[in-house]
């Protein structure tokens, strides 16, 4: 093959890659241009560039969704749940790796095999259990539920990672007079940083976007609704009001897209690390 011919082929592939990118982005383009049109314009000229920009759609969607409240609920729940999952799972995984007793081996396989249980398989009794424990319609109840669902994968990932951390590093801490808890917090936990990033990213995408669990647990208190829940409520109440709906969708997806674009390299690396191990 000559160089000339080769770059020709590469150019064709480059064009193909651009075309695919445009197809993938097309739905976003449609939503974006229609979010600033009047209702009539959306129906008559859906594909056209907006003739006049109707920013009022955004103001109305902002109010209907109660956007600041929904955003804060999503943020608080996601951050609190991830913090708990990381700490609980790192501690449990550390103990299980360093003390592989029969009990710990059993517990580890219990955590791991529970990962195949689909959420819909246990949601019915889950509602009963959480309601009796007073966890419904409470932000903290929902966060605790995420602890329960999230620790399995996180323990699995930390377990694999801690196995590769040499024990000698910890022994230096023991010599310095650290308690077992001190060794974990001051020496082991900081070393887990790369895997913590993976666990945070995987859980952030899941919890921020999750619908059914929060829907079952907190949807009846409007002040606790997350972004997916308030979007669902808006679509239920204002059926086919596309002007309102498009603005709401833009505001709904904006935070997670900004998060992704800001950290895209780490997110894609984290996801690869998480899935190849998983």
């Amino acid at each position, binding site marked *: 093959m000559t160089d000339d011919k080769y770059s020709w082929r590469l150019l064709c592939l480059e064009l193909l890659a651009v075309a695919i990118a445009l197809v*993938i982005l097309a739905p976003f383009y449609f939503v974006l241009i229609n979010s600033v049109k009047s209702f009539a314009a959306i129906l008559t000229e859906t594909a056209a560039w907006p003739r006049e920009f109707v920013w009022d759609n955004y103001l109305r969607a902002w109010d209907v969704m109660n956007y600041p409240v929904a955003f804060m609920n999503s943020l608080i729940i996601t951050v609190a749940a991830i913090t708990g999952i990381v700490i609980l799972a790192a501690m449990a995984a550390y103990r299980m790796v360093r003390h592989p007793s029969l009990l710990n081996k059993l517990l580890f396989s219990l955590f791991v095999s529970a990962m195949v249980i689909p959420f819909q398989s246990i949601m019915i009794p889950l509602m009963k259990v959480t309601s009796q424990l007073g966890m419904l319609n409470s932000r903290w109840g929902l966060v*605790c539920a995420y602890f329960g669902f999230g620790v399995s994968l996180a323990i699995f990932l930390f377990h694999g990672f801690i196995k590769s951390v040499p024990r000698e590093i910890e022994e230096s801490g023991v010599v310095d007079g650290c308690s077992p808890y001190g060794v974990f917090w001051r020496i082991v936990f900081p070393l887990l940083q790369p895997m913590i990033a993976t666990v945070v990213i995987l859980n952030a995408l899941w919890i921020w976007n999750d619908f059914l669990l929060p829907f079952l647990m907190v949807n009846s208190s409007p002040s606790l609704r997350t972004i997916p829940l308030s979007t669902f409520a808006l679509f239920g109440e204002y059926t086919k009001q596309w002007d309102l709906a498009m603005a709401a969708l833009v505001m709904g997806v904006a935070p997670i897209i900004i998060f992704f674009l800001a950290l895209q390299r780490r997110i894609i690396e984290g996801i690869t690390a998480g899935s190849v191990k998983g």
Partner: protein
Amino acid sequence: MGGPKGNQWLQQLVFVGPAFIFFSIIVLIPFFFGIYYSFTSWNGISTTVEWVGWDNFKRLFSDRHFVNAFLFTVKFMIVTVIITNTIAFLLALLLTRALKLRNLYRTVYFLPNVIGGLLLGYIFQFIFTRGFPALGELTGIGLFQLPWLGTAGTGFWAVVIISVWQMAGYMMVIYIAGIISIPKELLEAGKIDGASGWSLIRRIVVPLVMPSVTVCLFLTISNCFKAFDQILSLTGGGPFKSTETVALDIYFEAFTRNHFGLGSAKAIVFFIIVAAVTMVQVALTKRREVEA
């Protein structure tokens, strides 16, 4: 107090205890309660729970909703898994070439995956009901003018399209990692032996990315089984329940028809099927993994 032994138990409790408590309350206990409820006719509210033995499970086979949802889910799963993985693998091959804007493409292809299923379903509801007809008018292409969410046949493909659009980029990233890890020497050796193009891909690349195939098949199969959010917001299971997955059927059975017992039986059967299918798949594809 308890000396070294007692100390060990305290540590076990402090390190593993909290994770295990949350896990038990949220996953283990509901799981076993679910098995119990599946043998009852409980409606979710009444205080008396009546034991009905295997009745719920016997009813499943004649339950129209469940049988239809099950057939739809299997068909949807097979079609989506094949299309998603084929596209993802081809995209991975494309992006492992020396393209100028490789990282930009990777970002764009991955982008649909960060959007939650519920919002994604609404976006595509608009695309299928307003965007496609508009494109159809502009271009005259008949495909765009179909009633995408209006009939069972097109509804099926609408659900497939949105699922492929969402998952392909994610699987692509995993395939890229697999392709990159293939030692360069092997590809060079293959080229020297006269293999080129497709035979290079078939004989060398495909066998060596089998670990990625195992992961991707597992993820796509279990995602398809569990598909809920995007179908709820795209079609709501319609038209005429034609796009209702087992996951949706369990939800409706329990929370709109208030049959917690029957719903639990469906949930248990659903769990057994998902676990069995994914375990068989992992065992099968793992056997085909080869060392480089």
